């Protein structure tokens, strides 16, 4: 949590950096989507983990805290439905952008989420850089680990979502699933969810927020904009490409207001704190 002094210094730096340019990376809708995603994900993790590790010392206490097993399952389903709706809206958006608006570069090209040959080269180049064997690759709009994050969530939504609904409406799904599948969906649901929890609360947190380049938090997903310096550093290729095409000016946004920065910090750090707490609880339950 930032100290009050830090706030004033931030306001000074914002006003001092008023000459600095800020570029838009995420639209308002994308930021809202991330907010819905992490809120429901935290809710699903907080209500799902006690069920997965129901014999651990904290599970029963936690379940009692939210009103016992009936409430915990109800809350889990509630968050699941909200997340499902968000996912469907996202699918609708992609469909609209690709097939109605005929937007180019959604499925292929430097701004696409779809993996391409450059990503393979980037993975190898990045690892070589880790080991001091080469220069740091110049990343484009979405780096390979960001694409992995996206597709991991995409795949996870389908796998966890489908297996979850199969358990919720088991007699209905039994009409077209073999008997043993009803056993398998719990294994799939809980293992995939465990992967998601471990991945998001350790790897995504560090890769995106806690690594030195972004420490303590990458604010761009909350404010939607990033400074020119950060843009150049983190996504050199995208910067250069836009500069070359003379389209950089189209991306210029406004400096984030102080209230938004502070609000984002409170929300972001709360999410990270809850996530890390759940990670510790998960690890204690898993290894005990």
């Amino acid at each position, binding site marked *: 949590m930032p100290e009050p002094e830090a706030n004033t210094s931030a306001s000074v*730096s914002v006003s001092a950096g008023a000459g600095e340019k*800020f570029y838009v990376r995420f639209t308002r809708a994308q930021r809202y989507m991330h907010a819905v995603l992490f809120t429901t994900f935290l809710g699903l993790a907080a209500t799902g983990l006690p*069920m*997965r590790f*129901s*014999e651990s010392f904290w*599970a*029963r206490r936690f*379940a*009692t805290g939210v*009103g*016992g*097993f*009936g409430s*915990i*399952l109800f809350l889990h389903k509630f968050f699941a439905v909200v997340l499902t709706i968000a996912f469907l809206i996202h699918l609708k958006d992609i469909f609209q952008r690709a097939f109605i608006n005929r937007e180019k570069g959604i499925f292929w090209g430097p701004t696409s989420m779809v993996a391409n040959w450059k990503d393979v080269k980037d993975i190898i180049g*990045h*690892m070589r*850089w*880790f*080991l001091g064997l080469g220069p740091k690759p110049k990343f484009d709009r979405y780096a390979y*680990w960001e694409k992995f994050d996206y597709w991991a969530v995409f795949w996870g939504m389908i796998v966890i979502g489908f297996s979850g609904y199969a358990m919720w409406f*088991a*007699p*209905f799904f*039994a*009409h077209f699933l*073999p*008997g*043993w599948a*009803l*056993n398998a969906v*719990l*294994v*799939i649901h809980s*293992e995939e969810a*465990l*992967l998601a929890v*471990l*991945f998001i609360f350790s*790897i995504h947190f*560090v*890769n995106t*927020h806690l*690594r*030195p*380049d*972004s*420490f*303590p938090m*990458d*604010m761009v997903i909350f*404010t939607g*904009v*990033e*400074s020119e*310096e950060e843009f150049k*550093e*983190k996504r050199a290729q995208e910067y250069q490409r836009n500069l070359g095409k003379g389209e950089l000016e189209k991306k210029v946004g406004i400096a*984030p207001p102080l209230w938004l920065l502070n609000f984002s910090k409170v929300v972001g750090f709360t999410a990270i704190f809850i996530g890390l707490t759940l990670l510790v609880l998960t690890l204690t339950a898993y290894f005990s």
Partner: protein
Amino acid sequence: MNEAARKNAILMIRSLALVAGLAVLALAPRNLRAQDCLTCHGDSSMTDSNGHSIFVDGKHFGDSIHGSLQCSNCHADIKGYPHPDKVAPVDCKTCHADQATQLSGSVHADSKEHPCTSCHGNAHEIFPKTDARSAVYPLNVPKTCGQCHNDNGMAGKHGLASVYPNYIDSIHGFALSKEGLLVAANCQSCHGSHHILSHTDPASPTYKSNIPQTCGNCHAKINDEYQAGVHGQAIAKGDLKAPVCSDCHTAHAILQPTESAFRMQSTPICGNCHKDKFSTYRDTFHSQLGSLGGYVETARCWDCHGAHDVRPTSDPTSPVNPANLIATCGRCHAGANASFVKYQPHANARDRKLNPGLYFVRLFMNLLLASVLTFFLLHTILWLIRSRYQQVKTKSDNGGKHA
């Protein structure tokens, strides 16, 4: 009243009593009547030479079951007045020979530790057991036994557990103490009264193989069901490993079976013997959700298998017989159909032969988990080290300050 005045008063009363007594003796026939004894013993301040009260409440004695008897019927060695300082202890077996015989063969045989009065109360105020004033009136029995069988009670000195608190908080204890149900089981309903035997004695009603019959004295229908089930039949054949009532319900701390505390505690009890079934049950959602406590409605062992008349799956009347599964599962899962009931509530994802589909699904998921996490963990650690190195080398700030 000070000590001197008290002594004076006692002396005066004794003198008066002596005079009165002599007068009575001079006038009356030889055999003593209760009324005569009460001349002295009816005085509540009267004590013997050791200072112990020798008071007998004439009214209560008259109301008691022995009220029509004369003192000398029990205090047989007192023939007249004055009587010796030391009188023989009253022997109840003179009249109650059957009970005395039973007692002498019981765990309470030591009459010094367990005189009749330890249960029946004040010797001069004994009431029939149907009388609410009796210490052995059904509603008073637990308290009476609890004098010794309680925390820090005498029974503890013999290494016996304190059972009174367990009993009094049990469904029987509540029925008795809160509702005042005379039919609610009290100590002697199960243990008997005079002829109480250790539960290790095959003649005892609390000996393992006798427990179903003992409980069945009240719970007759449950006992019939139990006898028809595999556990009852095993006990009847002499297999003492099979559970009886008290193995699942406990002996004294018996709970209402629909209570969540009971539902929580009982599944592991079945698991004591059915270890593999318990372990596979714990992998299921029934168990995962059920272990969270609260008012738990997920299926426990007996919800599917039946509680008292557990029968083999092959038995057509068993609720888990394939022919009955749709009805059994359908009790909770509305719309259960033939494909739905192919769900295996005891599937073992670690057993490739038994559940191949599940085995490979789990294997795939574990490999996915392990490979993704291993790769990214290494990736992230290397990245962190490299970034930090770069940061120190170029003395740059943390990136988060940029925006």
